[in-house]
């Protein structure tokens, strides 16, 4: 239950980044897992340099946001009018570049970022002992999701983004600089993954491949929750976390089977996802 909550919270955060990028830009970002990994490594470098976990989180998130913005400006922008296959190929290619760049710089040896001193050890929950930092992760992610919610639902930018998800042509015709919005959205979406990467670093050590598995899970979450839906990403993340965790307790070999079975079930019953408003063509 707790394991599922921690994993689900992380998946919710990463998926929310993926879903707002896809919902707004229509780009399926296969480099999202690599963003998660890059956030971890950027935070690791910051931690090595400063010894501060807080600075590591800030650096990891900001670095990936900047990386996302640069990616959008330099490459992704040129693919908005191209077929989906091209977008998939270019983001997949970028993810390979990022992973191999990290492998080249850091090697395959895993890197660890320790949790802050106040969050080490275990916390007695009455019925069991649980790692304190994992409980902290839930809190950190909850705050991050709240911040993302406020940006999306309580700011002018968020209003434009949500409008863009509904009808980007209309937003463009209203005189709003859609490309600037796209750039910011891509940066925020990437930042969500990078932030999750460094927050998760003390739980799992960093390796260049760490984004691959999380990418698959994230896509499933987005499909379950509803493509383009921020609340759907949160709900889908929490559901996926519980499915993976509970199945792992019974038979870990079937964790992914159950996850995909759940996704299939959702697609059969509600093709647009649990909280998806409409399907993209």
């Amino acid at each position, binding site marked *: 239950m707790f394991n599922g909550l921690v994993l689900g919270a992380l998946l919710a955060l990463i998926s929310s980044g993926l879903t707002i990028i896809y919902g707004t830009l229509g780009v399926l970002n296969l480099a999202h897992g690599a963003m998660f990994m890059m956030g971890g490594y950027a935070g690791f470098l910051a931690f090595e340099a400063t010894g501060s976990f807080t600075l590591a989180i800030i650096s990891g998130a900001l670095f990936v946001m900047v990386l996302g913005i640069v990616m959008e400006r330099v490459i992704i922008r040129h693919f908005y009018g191209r077929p989906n296959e091209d977008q998939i190929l270019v983001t997949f290619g970028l993810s390979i570049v990022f992973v191999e760049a990290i492998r080249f710089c850091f*090697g395959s040896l*895993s890197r*660890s970022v320790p949790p802050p001193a106040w969050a080490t050890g275990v916390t007695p929950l009455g019925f069991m002992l649980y790692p304190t930092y994992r409980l902290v992760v839930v809190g950190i992610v909850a705050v991050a999701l709240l911040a993302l919610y406020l940006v999306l639902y309580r700011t002018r930018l968020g209003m434009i983004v949500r409008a863009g998800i509904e009808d980007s042509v209309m937003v463009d015709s209203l005189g709003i600089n859609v490309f600037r919005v796209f750039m910011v959205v891509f940066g925020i979406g990437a930042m969500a993954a990078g932030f999750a990467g460094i927050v998760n670093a003390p739980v799992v050590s960093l390796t260049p491949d760490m984004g691959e598995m999380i990418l698959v899970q994230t896509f499933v979450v987005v499909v379950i929750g509803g493509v383009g839906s921020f609340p759907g990403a949160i709900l889908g993340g929490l559901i996926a976390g519980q499915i993976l965790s509970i199945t792992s307790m019974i038979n870990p070999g079937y964790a992914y089977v159950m996850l995909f079975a759940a996704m299939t079930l959702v697609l059969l019953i509600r093709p647009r996802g649990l909280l998806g408003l409409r399907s993209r063509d």
Partner: protein
Amino acid sequence: MTNRSSASTSRRDFLRSTALAGAAVAAGGGSSLFMPTRASAADYPALGTFPAGSAGNSVFVGITVPRTGTYAVQGEDELKGYQLAIEHINSGHPLIKAISPKTTKGVLGKEVKYGVADDEAKPNSAVQNISRFISENKAVLMTGGTSSAVAVALNKLAQREKVFYVVGISGSNDTTGKDCVRYSVRECTYGQTAAAALGPVLLKAFGKGKKAAYLTPDYTYGHTVQKSISEYLNKEGGWTTVTNQVCPLGAPDYSSFLLNISNSGADFLLNINWGHDAVLSIQQAKQFGVLDKQKLVIPYQVPFLAREVGQALIEDVYACTSFWWTMEDKYPLAKMFVAEFEKKYGYKPEWGANTCYMQFAMWANAVETAGTFYPPEVIKVYESGAKLQSTSGEVYFRPEDHQLVRPCVIVRGKKTAAMKGKEDHWEVLDILPGEPLMDKPDAAGCKLGDYT
């Protein structure tokens, strides 16, 4: 398979042999010319990639290792060992000559070339990689491993394709046990010998009647190592297995397993996980407070483990391994190997690189001794039981199951304060002769199969 080589091949081989002989005489290696066992390709029927693979001035070796995924670190380490060995074989390095005395430069005068492919420790990928090397490059030798599931799959491929296979890292009893084949050999220690070596050490250090929890990866390596070590401790020491948590290879999270282990009341956690799985599960065992109440044991040591999890987590941890670099104090060839490896790569070698270096060096010796690349003749050299000089002293291959009879090394994680350098992670407690540790060759049901 029974076609003899054509007359033109025979003439080419004769001319080539003559040219090589001239070169060898000029290089001062003339003594090998008069070896009675030296034979040309025409003396043997075509088999596998023979004679096509060795018809030119070079021979090709196909290497598949995990360069990504759970065992990526160890795969890269293996590759370094292979590459150093090939470099030494081609240059006729003194270390190779000490292991393979007939080596001049290359193998039978032919330069060794190689190709590398990433298998992610997946058997299907490994088989595809090597199949491509066999069909496209006419590989005369194949290697790969790291995961015993890969080793077992490649065993079958080697036997089917009649291409010789030297196993990289593989700890499963099955590799030279029930899944053994005529066309492969293994150099490193494995579950059964690790258990027989480490078991008495654990009983002496901690006594009898303890409770043990196991964290076991769900494939042939994990199951056979867990079986071997638990059977020994339970039978000889009256230990009890309170839980055996079987987890999938490459599990991203060990929470559910560790919660069960934490609640099991065990005195010891024997973690059989390997590669990044070992790193992650040990780090998470610490997070869950398991290591505060249970003593960690690593039955089958993992290269780079100490560097990755940090020395604090392996202090006083017992393990069995095939090689640790401080063995250079005892074995002259180990000293040469450590110096050469460090010169090339800038750090002390771990046991995976050592195993892979030795496998290529011993293959070079077998081919040079056979005087041909014809696989059955090469295999017969391995099966001769001839003593070989190695970085772990004198060793030999058991003809019945193709397992190297070699020492098992018992190590214990050093206290951080006792480390004499940043790579001084393990203290070698004992180097145990291999032969008394090994079950009889037929105990695991090995049936090697045919030569042709």
